[in-house]
């Protein structure tokens, strides 16, 4: 290998000298052949680096769902529902994968209308080693496809936080399949797909910035979660019976895995091992830190004690809020975004939810809906071309002197809220008519582990 690089360097030098040579005489054919060989070698070296990072990122994002989210959510429910809650995340790693292979990837990333992709990549037709220049010109399209799949897996898994401990497994499967088709794929296409209505970089009519999924992943899942919580109603006994998290040590481990996995989510969204990936990595980490501190500060002042659950909830809130902004903002802006998210999500979960009285079991709305909305709007404030020159020198956000971007972001937020809310309500109605969405009271009291899955999470008496 070293000799290959040496010759590459040598030929680069030759390339620089090329004009001089050309002035003297035309380039001999042999030299031209060697130059083009060097170009090929450079391309393949870059592709190797980018591909390595993107495959690692894809694995990191899958790790966010299982075991990350499964542990985080599993620890927060009662012992009788720990397996059913983990299953919500885990089964989607299988179900969404299959839908993705058949039509999902194509509906999200095929070049179709403003609202939905076409079927050109159905059954992954033509998705192979060749890059797709529109999305990620240096990696195989198959890498791009598998990376985006991991986002499609975690998004419906996030919603499960709202219906945990009381939804039928069959209805949950049908709900997810329909939700992917009617909400996720259209929204992903609108924001990230070529020609999508909101895609700022590939010909969208109303350019919105969403680097890693503030709208597509977090608003869509968070708002759907709220609708699901309202539609299903409160758990039996809520809020009078004790429904304390049964194992915060599991939740702690899960949250820390989410923090690490999120580097794949956000920095990976650069779709290359580039300086932009570094910038998104840094912003992600910094926002998470201040969100932890923001949530804990509020808790300490209000309740007198800073809790571990508060700390890890703050971390997730920060990760959510920085998601749309991560590839557009400076580290200092990230510190601000994270802190605001920690405070806002604390307020939503600990104060507003109690006042409104809805039972969003694991606060999927309070953290993902509110954190995602805040992050999407603040992206319009703090996005700067100093970090991301995707618009070739044109100003990005308010700090760049483009105040209209905040309005665009608000439009993107509204579209996401609307699609998630209406879509989820319609789908739940359909599932309710076909299967019934909620387990009966006896099953709920017995616990879903036993009543739906025929097993228990803890069999400590052998």
């Amino acid at each position, binding site marked *: 290998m070293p000799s290959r690089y040496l010759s590459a360097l040598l030929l680069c030098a030759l390339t620089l000298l090329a004009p001089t040579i050309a002035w003297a005489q035309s380039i001999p054919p042999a030299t031209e052949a060697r130059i083009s060989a060097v170009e090929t070698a450079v391309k393949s070296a870059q592709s190797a680096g980018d591909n390595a990072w993107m495959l690692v990122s894809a694995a990191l994002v899958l790790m966010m769902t299982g075991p990350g989210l499964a542990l985080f959510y599993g620890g927060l429910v009662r012992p009788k529902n720990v397996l059913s809650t983990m299953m919500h995340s885990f089964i989607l790693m299988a179900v969404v994968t299959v839908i993705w292979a058949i039509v999902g990837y194509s509906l999200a990333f095929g070049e179709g209308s403003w609202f939905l992709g076409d079927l050109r990549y159905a059954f992954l037709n033509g998705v192979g080693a060749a890059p797709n220049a529109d999305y990620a010109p240096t990696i195989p399209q198959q890498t791009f496809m598998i990376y985006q799949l991991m986002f499609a897996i975690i998004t419906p898994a996030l919603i499960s936080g709202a219906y945990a401990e009381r939804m039928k497994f069959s209805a949950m499967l049908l709900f997810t399949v329909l939700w992917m088709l009617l909400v996720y794929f259209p929204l992903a296409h609108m924001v990230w797909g070529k020609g999508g209505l909101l895609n700022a970089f590939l010909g969208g009519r109303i350019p919105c910035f969403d680097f890693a999924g503030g709208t597509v992943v977090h608003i869509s899942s968070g708002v759907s979660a709220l609708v699901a919580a309202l539609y299903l109603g409160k758990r039996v006994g809520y809020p009078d019976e*004790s429904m*304390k998290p049964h194992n915060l040590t599991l939740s702690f481990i899960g949250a820390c895995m989410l923090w690490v996995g999120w580097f794949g989510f956000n920095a990976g969204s650069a779709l290359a091992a580039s300086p932009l990936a570094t910038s998104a990595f840094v912003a992600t980490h910094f926002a998470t830190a201040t969100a932890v501190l923001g949530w804990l500060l509020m808790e300490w002042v209000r*309740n007198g*004690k800073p*809790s571990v659950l508060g700390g890890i*909830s703050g971390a997730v809130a920060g990760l959510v809020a920085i998601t749309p902004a991560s590839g557009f903002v400076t580290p200092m802006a990230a510190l601000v975004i994270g802190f605001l998210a920690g405070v806002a999500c604390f307020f939503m979960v*600990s104060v507003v*939810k*109690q006042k409104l009285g809805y039972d969003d079991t694991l606060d999927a709305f309070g953290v993902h809906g509110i954190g995602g909305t805040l992050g999407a709007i603040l992206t319009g404030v703090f996005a700067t071309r100093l970090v991301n020159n995707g618009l070739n020198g044109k100003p990005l956000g308010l700090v760049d002197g483009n105040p209209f971007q905040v309005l665009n972001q608000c439009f993107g937020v509204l579209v996401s809220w609307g699609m998630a809310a209406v879509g989820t309500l319609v789908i739940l109605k359909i599932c309710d008519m076909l299967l019934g969405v909620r387990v009966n009271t006896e099953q709920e009291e017995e616990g879903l582990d036993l009543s739906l899955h025929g097993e228990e999470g803890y069999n400590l008496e052998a």
Partner: protein
Amino acid sequence: MKKIEAVIQPHKLEDVKAALKAIGVDGMTITEVRGHGRQKGHKEIYRGMEYEVDLLPKMKIEMVVSTARSDEVVQTILSSARTGKIGDGKIFVYDVAEAIRIRNDERGEGAL
């Protein structure tokens, strides 16, 4: 024969066990229990949901001793389990009708 049942603070269990061993009591049954008397519980807050926890973890020690040793055993538990704060627990003493060793059908105090 007397059955002595003591509900004590979990963190005093080792002290009580050591004190009883020192006076030659070598059989006992321990159960982890929850309960409360005059001791107040505490408040826990999870994401704004407040829970009053008033059933607190305790240890229940049960043993059967000869009537002659009963007072000595009670005194030993009293002095080794006491912290002086509310929540130290209680001791109950019962009469026992019979004791039988399952291994060899031995009966009465000899079975203890």
